[in-house]
């Protein structure tokens, strides 16, 4: 009896550490102490921005990696949340701006994004592969032009400016350190949620649907409903990222949700790798660093060429992105450690 209790007491503890994984713990600690060493610029413009785009790409990874649905509309969903924040909250563009407090605006914005995402999903889940890509691209393009030419709701090309992140508990959440932790919190939460979700019954079903939809349908699963729900969940992630994005920029305009940005999201996810939820974050860091510093390396005229070349090389060397690259190096490293061993 007493033996059993002891074993019971010990076992869960081991499971807990095993479950989370030492790598995760180290990474989390490193990210938590990162503000001690980084400059404000690296805190928000690089790390914060990367994490926002990481979460956005994560919502694509959820759809593409687990559900087999390639979407170009994630930035559109984020844009819906961002515009909702601008319209329901306050801005200084003298157009709309209902001035609601942030704790009503944010849930509203995220809900609007999630519902729109489910709608986009509902329209596109009947298609597959390249056709899903085309439908979502059409939605992204249409939304961009609609926002650019609609003055009553979207304020046209100028969009909305003067949107402030909330100030509560005596903290201005757009200050570098609080904003970094806000982004980090959201990134960790989304990452954990997607990781947990992928092993849940729903996640397993979704992956089974991805691999063989006809069989799943024959087994009695409602394939469309599962897929649409995945879109809804991806919409929640993209919506949250959209809220952070509008606080980050302090503004939102059609340029924020342009087709080039939609493709950036896809590039980030592919560069990082779609096999594991960490991939989008790795991809985001690489892409944001490239976009920010390429101009210093090759000058103003050619820096887009350099960005393109680096992407080409990554995808050429490893079709699975940086994660795949890691998978290839790993066996070599393992053998190295065997040789170096005592």
């Amino acid at each position: 009896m007493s033996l059993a209790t002891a074993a019971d007491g010990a076992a869960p503890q081991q499971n807990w550490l095993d479950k989370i994984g030492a790598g995760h713990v180290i990474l989390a600690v490193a990210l938590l102490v990162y503000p001690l060493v980084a400059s404000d610029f690296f805190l928000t413009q690089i790390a914060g921005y990367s994490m926002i785009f990481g979460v956005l790409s994560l919502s694509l990874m959820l759809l593409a990696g687990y559900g087999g649905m390639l979407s170009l509309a994630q930035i559109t969903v984020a844009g819906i949340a961002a515009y909702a924040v601008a319209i329901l909250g306050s801005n200084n563009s003298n157009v709309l701006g209902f001035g609601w407090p942030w704790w009503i605006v944010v849930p509203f914005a995220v809900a609007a994004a999630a519902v729109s995402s489910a709608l986009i999903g509902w329209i596109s889940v009947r298609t597959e592969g390249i056709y899903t890509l085309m439908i979502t691209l059409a939605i992204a393009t249409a939304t961009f032009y609609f926002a650019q030419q609609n003055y009553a709701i979207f304020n046209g090309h100028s969009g909305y400016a003067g949107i402030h992140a909330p100030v509560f508990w005596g903290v201005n959440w757009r200050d570098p350190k609080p904003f970094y932790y806000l982004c980090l919190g959201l990134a960790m939460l989304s990452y954990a949620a997607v990781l947990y979700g992928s092993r849940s019954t729903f996640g397993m079903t979704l992956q089974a649907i991805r691999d063989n939809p006809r069989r799943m349908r024959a087994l009695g699963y409602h394939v469309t409903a599962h897929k649409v729900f995945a879109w809804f969940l991806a919409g929640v992630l993209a919506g949250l990222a959209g809220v952070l994005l509008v606080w980050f920029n302090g503004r939102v305009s059609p340029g924020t949700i342009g087709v080039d940005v939609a493709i950036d999201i896809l590039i980030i996810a592919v560069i990082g790798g779609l096999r594991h939820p960490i991939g989008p974050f790795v991809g985001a860091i690489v892409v944001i660093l490239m976009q920010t510093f390429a101009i210093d390396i090759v000058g103003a005229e050619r820096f887009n060429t350099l960005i393109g070349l680096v992407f080409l090389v990554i995808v050429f060397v490893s079709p699975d992105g940086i994660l795949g690259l890691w998978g290839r190096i790993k066996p070599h490293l393992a053998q190295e450690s065997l040789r170096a061993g005592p």
Partner: protein
Amino acid sequence: MHRRTLLALALFTGLTAPSMALAADDTIKIGLLATFEGPFTVLGEDGERGAMTAVAETNGTVAGKKIEIVKGSSDASPDSAVRAARKLVEQDGVKVLVGPLSGDEGLAVKDYAKTKPDVTFINGTSAAQDTTLRNPAENFFRFSTDGAQWMAGLGTYAFNDKGYKKVATVAEDYSFPYTQVFGFMAEFCKAGGHVPSKSWVPIGNKDFSSVIAAIPEDVDAIYVALGGADAVNFLTQYQQAGGTAPLIGGSITVDQTVLTSKGKLRDVLKGTPSAGPTADTNDAPAWKSFVAAYAKQPGAFPSPSLFAHGYYVNMKATLLALDQVGGDVSDGGKKLREALSKLSFDTPTGKVSLDKNRNAIADIFLTEVTEGSDGNLLNKLVKVVPQVNQTLGIPEDEFMKLGAVNRDNPSCP
């Protein structure tokens, strides 16, 4: 687990690369923000040539210190302009920033300037009226004039000398073309003209057929305020559609960035009246020596575009003021800003000084497109409108009553 740790460490060190904000004592860092991506790339590159002409004039030094130019790129969207400005200020540590290029970018950078009172912002060529007229930032200076000022003299000239009574407008859909249309219509409507239709097209539009179809048939002329690739696309398609109405040009529509394009477009553009801060056939010695200095820049146009001119004037003002304060910006740029606001100097296009909103008062040139002796299209100088201020000579309170420029203001159908 060992490998994961390595990965985490690698990520961590990558993210903590130290910021290189510390400049050596004998150099002055100046940020240069222009559009090196998107539909305005050609314009941004010529802006850079202008700025570098000013730097070359002082042999790359000011007050005994070496000038270091740090470039930032936007794609003409306000978000990207602010992101580039943030990188220049917060990462590269510039205390003086010259830029940006286009209207909405200027409005966004002005808003950003308010959050960085220690940094001095000097405009590039962005020419939206409200960058300086309404709600200005204390540390944002504009030695180039705004889009409405650039139109000084054109509306009256089109009505009186050209005899156009009814004019339709086609312009891009953002703050700078609003300002240009405002400047043109302010005079044209006052002279008795009518504008029955205004078409606003998005930046980067490729297909203008619906816009061309919507232009009323009975207009005497079409006023076009489009920039770069958009102007070339519209003018080509208008000609292909058999359009014959004469044109009136916005400042950047008949700029060197458009005039140097090849093809039949040339015939359409000949004789187009316009107005702006420069005129190619200006024979003032100061302008001629500026053209000669500009021509030394790699890839230069036959004659500097107004972007080269605007960036040149603003960079020149920056260098003059820096020279006055001995290159000292250690007080958060306070002395520099004082020097800038009092600055008045002779540019290649006449005297420039600032008003109380830190916006330029300068000469404006009325021009007409002609073919030069070497076959290049040029803007021939017709008339100089001296010392135009931001309220176009109208008393300020009266001018403010006209309201903020937008798609519907002004109107005289």
